[in-house]
């Protein structure tokens, strides 16, 4: 983009003000952390941060697709919990079996969502709420309501434990590959254009002859698959399938997507900005933990929830002012 002579930095910044702001905030926080804490940039912190947050990054990316179409997927956390149990059961067969099958199970839940939303015409909020309850119940049923230990003898746990360059766990590498893939789909393919068009106006897209239903179905399949992958990371990173995990993950994912500047009304959104949003939310906690460690503040876990909500509040205020500005400009232009 930089070599094109049409590129105008000022215009780019004003048009993408929020994602630019997110990136600036992200780098500012990283710089702050590096300067203030000795071990912040250390291999242990970086790799455990990336391993833990890779789950949230991947479900946020799936959520981003759904939200761009104007939908919502509340089932991601429960689906991840379900697939973590599935992955744990399949772990003796190795990662090459457990990973694809668990992701497929996630896709199947996505298909259930898509069926309810597109065929039965149930609003996404309700359809995915039901899937959330169903997957949560299902995870508890198949696991007998207890954590399922993975098989440490197979290569399954390598995904969360082994690191590339001693720094990047396989989980974040896989998520990064998936992210690039999704980014390319959204930005360059006709499917991506259709997805953006649906969010802009579903009826108009249908009238234009776009394959709206197919694109909408795919969006939920993608989100389900992403949740499935998050479940595999969960099981491999923590050594067990966790049927009780995933509570409020959907809300973290929605928050990341919103922080990344994707409008909930749909029609607009970016994968890199969503990743930045997820990293930013994760980093706020990482830094709070370091502050706790230094003893300058002693925030209980309860304060973290309050701060998390306050942070979301600040972002939403920022975003609502931005969109107001954008709308006003659009009206005068």
């Amino acid at each position, binding site marked *: 983009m930089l070599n094109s002579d049409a590129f105008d930095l000022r215009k780019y910044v004003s048009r993408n003000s929020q994602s630019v702001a997110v990136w600036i905030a992200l780098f500012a926080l990283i710089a702050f952390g590096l300067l203030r804490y000795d071990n912040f940039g250390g291999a242990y912190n970086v790799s455990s941060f990336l391993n833990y947050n890779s789950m949230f990054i991947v479900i946020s990316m799936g959520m981003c697709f759904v939200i761009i179409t104007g939908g919502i997927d509340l089932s991601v956390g429960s689906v991840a919990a379900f697939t973590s149990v599935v992955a744990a059961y399949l772990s003796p067969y190795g990662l090459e079996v457990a990973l694809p099958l668990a992701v497929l199970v996630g896709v199947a839940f996505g298909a259930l969502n898509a069926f309810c939303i597109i065929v039965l015409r149930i609003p996404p*909020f309700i*359809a995915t709420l039901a899937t959330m309850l169903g997957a949560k119940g299902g995870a508890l049923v198949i696991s007998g309501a207890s954590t399922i230990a993975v098989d440490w003898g197979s290569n399954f746990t390598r995904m969360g434990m082994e690191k590339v360059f001693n720094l990047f766990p396989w989980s974040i590498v896989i998520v990064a590959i998936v992210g690039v893939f999704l980014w390319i789909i959204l930005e360059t393919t006709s499917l991506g254009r259709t997805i953006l068009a649906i969010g802009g106006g579903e009826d108009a897209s249908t009238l234009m002859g776009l394959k709206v239903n197919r694109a909408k179905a795919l969006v939920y399949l993608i989100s389900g698959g992403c949740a499935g992958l998050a479940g595999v990371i969960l099981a491999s990173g923590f050594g067990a399938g966790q049927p009780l995990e995933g509570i409020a993950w959907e809300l973290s994912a929605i928050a990341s997507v919103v922080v990344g500047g994707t409008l909930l009304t749909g029609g607009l959104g970016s994968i890199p900005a969503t990743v930045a949003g997820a990293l930013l939310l994760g980093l706020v906690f990482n830094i709070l933990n370091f502050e706790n460690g230094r003893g300058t503040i002693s925030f209980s876990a*309860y304060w973290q*929830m309050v701060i998390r909500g306050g942070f979301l509040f600040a972002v939403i205020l920022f975003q609502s002012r931005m969109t107001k500005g954008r709308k006003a400009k659009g009206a005068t232009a």
Partner: protein
Amino acid sequence: MSQSNPTQTSLQIGPLLRDHGGVVALIVILAFNILFTPNFLQLQTLFVNISQVATIAIVAMGMTLVIATGGIDLSVGAVMALAGALAPLIFQSQFGVDYPALGIAAALVVPLLVAGACGMFNGVMVAVLNVQPIIATLILFISGRGIAQVLTNGNLQTFSNKSFSYLGTGKVLGLPFQGWLALAIAVILFLVISRTIFGRYVLAIGGNERAARLAGGPVTKVKIGVYMICAGLAGLAGLIVVAINSASDAARNGNLMELDAIAAAVVGGALLQGGRAPIFGAILGAVIIQLVKYTLLANGVEDEVALIAKAGIILAAVYVQQTRKE
């Protein structure tokens, strides 16, 4: 009417389910319980279910109003926890011990005011800043329970206070007090919706917000009011739960209540797009949700399976609604 033809006299199941699905479901569940659940026809069972259903119904009625404007309120469970955490803090404080009557009054009024303030926050976010209801109420969903836990250091607050516990354990005419309370709230809200200008606007906003605004309606005020009512009712439910248990646990009070309330409202006939506020439907929905829980529990079905059943009920209810619209 004069001619009866055989197809009309026979029971038509399709339309019956569509128009009175909730009632049919209730009858089926009741029949099942009477036949199969041991000791179902006992006063004790009735008491247990009424005291449980009252909190769901109270929150669900508030949720129904919010949904009628086309909104949603995810923060009800967190507001319950917050209100529930405040009450024991107040009547167990030095002030509350010195002046028991004033302490109880403050322990009832202050949490409800705080809950109302939470609702005002939600309402301003939605109506003034135009934030989507899911996101706007997500803020308090996340931080409200955190505030409650910060206030109590995450400790379980136990107490024995007869007058406060009346809210959850008292009986009027032999039936639990909170059941009567829920009924009274339902009657008031029903009158508000059907007889007042405020009620007209609630439905008008859900039907077509732009039109309501262009017609000069006080859309912003009404929307803020609806979120305040919803949060206030959630606060009341939080107090009742604390009174029932004689203990306040900020981590558990109202946990997942938003799901039960939304489910009850939807099963009761509320349309997520807005425009309808079936207050008594919300009570019916709450009764169905509670009875399904009770039925599965009493028959030894695990909690996990009950979740799946709840999911099925929600889907079925919305699907039936959807077919009615078309």
